[in-house]
């Protein structure tokens, strides 16, 4: 069966900024796919491009962008609006930005449903209450009458998830849904998402900068760097045998509790992400890569390292074993 969301060679520019430069990834049905990378690498822009929600001035192009067999590139604005919030829904890092402070939770949730599916407001409120229970909100009846600012951050994120589920979407895009939350609340929200995926057969595109989250919830991973997907792999394989030097560097930077050697420095990647202008060629990581040579300024091959594992680098698979970094 074909992938639920299939994106090939997505490009997004804002004037002279190339925010996404040929990102390709696939979200299979019923899986959680993580898009991971550091700030500014183009994760949010990628998600917004898929939803056709790019800010003014954002130019999108792609070789392919299909959702459940529908070609998203050829949809009109109206057709896209019919999909959004309905068959594909999105939640954001800061729930307050997508909740209207002037309306109660209940009326905002009901509106999503009546807009897409019609039906009565009462039926929509019933469904809202049911879903709030489903996402672990106690006393949903009371919460429906409250305003967004009356809820804690964790509760607001649960409300956002419930709202995204109103129309039974096939795909949920979650952009750093727990970054603003405390670790204990983060664990609860991620558990909730994992349960929804399992029980509702939901597919999730989860955007994060946190490799710990990736390891614990993803089925497949796409690692982004400077607007490109530089490595794609099944999760266990990515952590066991990362191939791209950036992926390897990133993994070495994460302090892991219980394995800390306090007298030793953490692994780190020298330097910073370069500014990428139009016409940039070659590997964007070369200014920070210990293995860079003059060929890295030319076109870089996408190499295969396993069935569903590939990466963008001049080095052959398993270079790491030959030449420990």
């Amino acid at each position, binding site marked *: 069966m074909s992938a639920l969301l299939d994106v090939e060679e997505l490009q997004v520019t804002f004037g002279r900024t190339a925010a996404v430069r040929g990102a390709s990834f696939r979200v299979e049905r019923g899986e959680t796919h993580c898009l991971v990378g*550091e*700030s500014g690498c183009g994760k949010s822009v990628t998600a917004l491009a898929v939803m056709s929600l790019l800010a003014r001035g954002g130019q999108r192009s792609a070789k392919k962008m299909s959702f459940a067999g529908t070609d998203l590139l050829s949809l009109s604005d109206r057709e896209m609006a019919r999909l959004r919030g309905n068959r594909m829904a999105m939640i954001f890092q800061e729930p307050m930005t997508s909740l209207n402070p002037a309306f109660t939770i209940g009326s905002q949730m009901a509106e999503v449903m009546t807009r897409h599916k019609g039906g009565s407001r009462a039926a929509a409120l019933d469904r809202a209450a049911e879903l709030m229970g489903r996402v*672990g909100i106690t006393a949903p009846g009371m919460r429906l009458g409250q305003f967004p600012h009356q809820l*804690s*951050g*964790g*509760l607001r994120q*649960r409300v956002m998830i419930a709202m995204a589920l109103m129309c039974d979407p096939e795909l949920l895009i979650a952009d750093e849904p727990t970054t603003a939350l*405390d*670790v*204990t*609340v*983060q*664990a*609860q929200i*991620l*558990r909730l998402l*994992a349960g929804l995926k399992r029980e509702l057969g939901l597919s999730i595109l989860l955007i994060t*900068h*946190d*490799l*710990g*989250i*990736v*390891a*614990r*919830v993803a089925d497949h991973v796409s690692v982004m760097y400077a607007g490109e997907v530089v490595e794609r792999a099944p*999760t*266990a394989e*990515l*952590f*066991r045998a990362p191939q791209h030097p950036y992926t390897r*560097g*990133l*993994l*070495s*930077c*994460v*302090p*892991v*509790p*219980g394995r*800390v050697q*306090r007298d030793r*420095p*953490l*692994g*780190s*990647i*020298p330097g*910073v*992400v370069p500014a990428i202008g139009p016409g940039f060629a070659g590997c964007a990581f070369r200014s920070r890569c210990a293995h860079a040579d003059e060929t890295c300024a030319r076109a870089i091959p996408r190499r295969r390292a396993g069935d569903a594992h590939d990466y963008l680098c001049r080095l052959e698979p398993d270079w790491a074993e030959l030449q420990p970094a």
Partner: protein
Amino acid sequence: MTAAIEVENLRCEFRVHTGLMSAEKRVVAVDDVTFSVPAGSVLGIVGESGCGKSTLARLILGLLKPTAGTVLVDGKRLFDLDRKARARLIQPVFQDPFASLNPRRRIKDIVALPLAAQGTFSRGEIERRVGGILERVGLSAAMGERMPAQLSGGQRQRAAIARALVLEPRIVICDEPTSALDVSVQAQILNLLADLRRDLGLTYLFISHNLAVVEHVASEVAVMYLGRFVERNETDALFRKPRHPYTQALLESVLTPEPGKGVPDIGLGDAMPDPSNIPPGCRFNPRCRIAVERCRHEAPMPMARPPRGMVECHLA
């Protein structure tokens, strides 16, 4: 040897107005905290948002007057010192390097400011020291000529560290110094802070909500909940054998990069702690998995735990 920081029965209350008609509320941000930090060591402080970490930092820096209790820094009361003497003794590094650097001045002038404010350094001496500290934190002389907006987040944090260290203080209060940074840059800054501490013999109070980061840098860790230290111990001991149920929950929620382990069930509930409404008995009891009847009316007292720590829990 005198402790670098000595805090006794420290308390800080804020009065906040919640609305037009409603009465004034009392927020207890720091509630009777006692501890000391030996010179040359690193005390890490962890806890959820709003538990009072930054308030404690501001109290120790002398930026905030305590409601009760005392703070001694290097054996002196900060309120007895003038600003210049205070600046030579203790310096902060905050989370958001952008907000804490004047956007209209060059980096080297920002770093020079604490020296200039002392009024005792010649221009040549200032230039020499600024050049030295910039190099020490990994910023080139060319970077010194730039404005803050022209630096990356990690470079700005290096500049903030340079400014904190240019007067050669003995003690540095780091409040979430890497929370706004990417992991690869966070690693650079943590390594830099560790080198500086070793080479200059500094003492750190290191605040973070990231337990893995704290474990990496701290020699001792305190866990804060609703304004109190509920557990404190040497880092290895605390991570190996967390005693307080809240410490245990915090540790369990850390998502280590280990595929296949799934997301743990923390079971703390969404009842976020509210410092204007501290529960009677043990302040953690509404979220505690193992609370017993006694916890609801009797507050636990601090009890010593080996090797050099304490815990506040009836059952730990």
